[in-house]
């Protein structure tokens, strides 16, 4: 018997004499994700954990009971790549290497401000341009972010939150979408290093191009490798050796267990697989608009991917006489087929919301993937257990299993139905009842992200 369960039982025993200390949902359909779905069963939540799950469970006397008749219990949804919880780190970078996006304003003072000294343009990799690899979402988290409630009401219980500005933007943390203090939100950290291919364009410092950004990342990983070796060598026997300089950029890279690399088009996916393999570090690709063309390649590479739920859309304010390229039409028609293609090929994938502003729109986007062939089960998995697995957290999150963190969403109706109501959300065992549907913020806000 694991320590955890023993602890839970002990806890239950003590609690028996006290007022109700847990919640039991009974008569509910339970989509466990880890195992078969229980058509009528019980989930008992206590002490922030799932205490018991099963079809025939006796419900202890010391818990509140919820009648789950007509309700379905899912694991809480995970947005695998997000800035929710990091209100000051909203994404500035497009997912793929588009010039000009995502310069870290945090480390480069605004040049327009009167009297502000302009940062000299970077002369090369040695100046560590666009790098805040040491930043950690766990340190940046703020429970005051209004999106926390919006998304929690829609069934999201956790996010993989990452700083997103710059080339080495920083380290992610898995945050729960509840808690009074930032520290309570953090489930795990660091998840990995969020990397973009942002460049300064034609008039800034290094790197000024896509290939410059790639070369920079390559140099940093080489430097990190060497830094690690030099530090180890020095630690072993400092005598007669010059002390290696402390480099916080490299420390940040070395602390990160995996690299998140941007790849939307098929060409970028192939390119980033090659690049990731070269970096000799576990890597995850994010974006994947054209993932439907690259499923086999991804399967071969064995790299997990995060699929953006912002499907490409027709430009709304385009020229009515302009005929789009076949490429653009094809991508738009086929992008929602990416998850199905990945599932068929056996590629590990999770979803991320990529700035889609409301949970309702997120679900709509998932439905598009289902319409394009993704099974409901795979869709649920992509938003729960797979996300946890990709970050190595499946031991505590992502399914309705005994002993896991009690992150649950209870719905009336299938998760992805248009009319589905979210009745309860549990985060760390804490129950939330989304009262009214939160109205969508004005659409303008969506565009500015």
């Amino acid at each position: 018997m694991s320590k955890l369960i023993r602890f839970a039982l002990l806890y239950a025993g003590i609690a028996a004499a006290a007022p109700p200390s847990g919640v039991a949902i009974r008569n509910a359909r339970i989509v466990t994700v880890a195992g078969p779905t229980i058509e009528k069963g019980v989930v008992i939540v206590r002490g922030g954990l799932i205490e018991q799950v099963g079809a025939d469970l006796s419900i202890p006397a010391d818990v509140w009971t919820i009648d789950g008749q007509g309700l379905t219990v899912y694991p809480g949804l995970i947005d695998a790549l997000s800035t929710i919880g990091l209100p000051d780190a909203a994404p500035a970078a497009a997912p793929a290497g588009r010039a000009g996006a995502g310069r870290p304003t945090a480390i480069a003072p605004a040049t327009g401000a009167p009297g502000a000294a302009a940062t000299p343009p970077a002369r090369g990799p040695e100046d560590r341009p666009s790098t805040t690899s040491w930043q950690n979402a766990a340190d940046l988290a703020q429970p005051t972010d209004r999106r926390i409630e919006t998304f929690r009401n829609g069934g999201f219980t956790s996010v993989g939150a990452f700083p997103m500005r710059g080339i080495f933007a920083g380290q992610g943390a898995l945050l729960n979408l509840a808690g009074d203090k930032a520290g309570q939100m953090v489930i795990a950290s660091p998840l990995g290093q969020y990397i973009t291919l942002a460049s300064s364009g034609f008039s800034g410092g290094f790197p000024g191009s896509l290939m410059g950004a790639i070369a920079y990342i390559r140099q940093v990983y080489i430097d990190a490798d060497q830094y690690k070796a030099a530090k180890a060598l020095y630690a072993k026997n400092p005598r007669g050796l010059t002390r290696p300089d402390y480099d916080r950029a490299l420390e940040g890279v070395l602390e990160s267990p995996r690299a998140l690399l941007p790849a939307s088009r098929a060409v970028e996916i192939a390119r980033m697989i090659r690049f990731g393999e070269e970096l000799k570090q576990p890597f995850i690709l994010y974006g994947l608009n054209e993932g439907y063309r690259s499923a086999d390649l991804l399967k071969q590479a064995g790299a997990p991917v995060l699929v953006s739920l912002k499907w490409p859309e027709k430009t709304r304010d385009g020229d009515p006489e302009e005929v789009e390229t076949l490429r653009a039409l094809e991508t738009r028609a086929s992008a929602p087929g990416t998850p199905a293609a990945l599932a068929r090929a056996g590629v590990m994938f999770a979803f991320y919301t990529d700035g889609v502003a409301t949970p309702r729109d997120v679900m709509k986007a998932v439905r598009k993937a289902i319409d394009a062939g993704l099974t409901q089960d795979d869709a649920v998995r992509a938003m729960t257990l797979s996300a946890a697995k990709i970050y190595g957290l499946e031991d505590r999150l992502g399914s309705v299993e005994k002993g896991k963190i009690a992150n649950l969403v209870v719905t009336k109706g299938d998760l992805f139905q248009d009319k589905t109501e979210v009745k309860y959300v549990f985060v760390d065992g804490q129950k939330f009842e989304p009262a009214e549907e939160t109205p969508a913020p004005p659409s303008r806000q969506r565009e500015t992200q």
Partner: protein
Amino acid sequence: MKHLCAILFSVAAIAAPPTVIRNATILTITKGVVKNGSIVIRDGKIAEVGENVSVPEGAQVIDAAGQFVMPGMIDAHSHITAESVNEGSVSVSSMVGVDDVLNPEDIALYRALAGGVTTLSIMHGSANAIGGKCIVIKARWGKDAPGIVFEGAMPVIKFALGENPKRSGGTPVAQGGRGRYPATRMGVEDVFREAFTEAKNYQAEWREYNEKIKRGENAIAPHRDLKLEPLVEVLEGKRYVHAHGYRSDEMLMLLKVSDEFGFKIRFFVHGLEGYKIAKELAAHDVGVSTFSDWWSYKVEAYDAIPYNAALLMKKGVLVSLNSDDAELMRHMNQEAAKTVKYGGLTETEALSLVTINPAKQLGVDKQVGSIEAGKDADLVIFDKHPLSNYAKVQKVLIDGTVYFDRDKEQSELSKKDARKKALIDKEKQQQQQESPRRPGAARRPS
């Protein structure tokens, strides 16, 4: 994975039947003209060329009666398929390489193919004195990025002289510029000398370290510098230098710098005033890859003459014509024809400017650049003599595979149009289906 591909590829090649091009006028470039000849292709290579060649059993036959076959053309200066061209932020950007950003789906690659170009050197731009690494590719339309790379081609780095490197950052910060050194041709020379001084130190540092390790001493490896590594390769003769230059003085300067540091310039790109220093170029065994007739678009191109290629050839310099342009590359044969007019080159000499000469310059002349047994079957079939301005490319083969066929162009286009129409219609239908649902939005609390 690479190995697996290689095996699969070779299996497929062995299984494929030989191909024979028959009844053609064959412009071999290096071995004269074969009238009414045949070319046998096996496993992607030219197996036999001649008038009396027997057609192997089961061979796939391409009848080229009345048509002309020449080697696939080679463009020694191109930027197609590169998703970025210039790392112009610094005056030494040898850490970057266009090989990292190839997009084999760039439609320009197909257009190159349709113009009879089969090999291209994809170069870094000329914004800085020491630019980035370049890559030689084949126009294997439909393959992925590793699939278009020309295996076995020498690694290359781009250098640049004159107006571009001095302009790209030369404006002082006070005047709203970047203030990037250098702003003069003097400064451009200095960038080279500084960089190669640094590279030599770097080379020595590694040598010292390697010796220490050999002696079993405790040593921390020197910092691996991706900027200096390619320059060391240049010093060690493992990487070609292709240097962008216009004026004779600046090219002469680089020749002297290369003498001083003991490396070689493989060829000058543009080299528009190469004709003024043909003697020095020939003595240094340095080639020129130039335009047929560009001039006057900037000051350093004011002395450019369309006789450049012919004069250089006559004076013993290895010379080729290049495009540096996604349109010009589509008729390199016509560009070659201009050297018959300007300087009186023979037809074979003219065609060598876009075939065997650039192959030599890129170090791929063992594989491509002429129609000879043993070489890659990279071939272009024209309906007329390729030096005629009326000649149209009919078929293009790379490694023996037909990659462009004008006869199939129309049906491919129709297919594309049909697919496009279907997608547009489907989207319209979906929109119509969705719009009646719109009133449902009223269900939302207002």
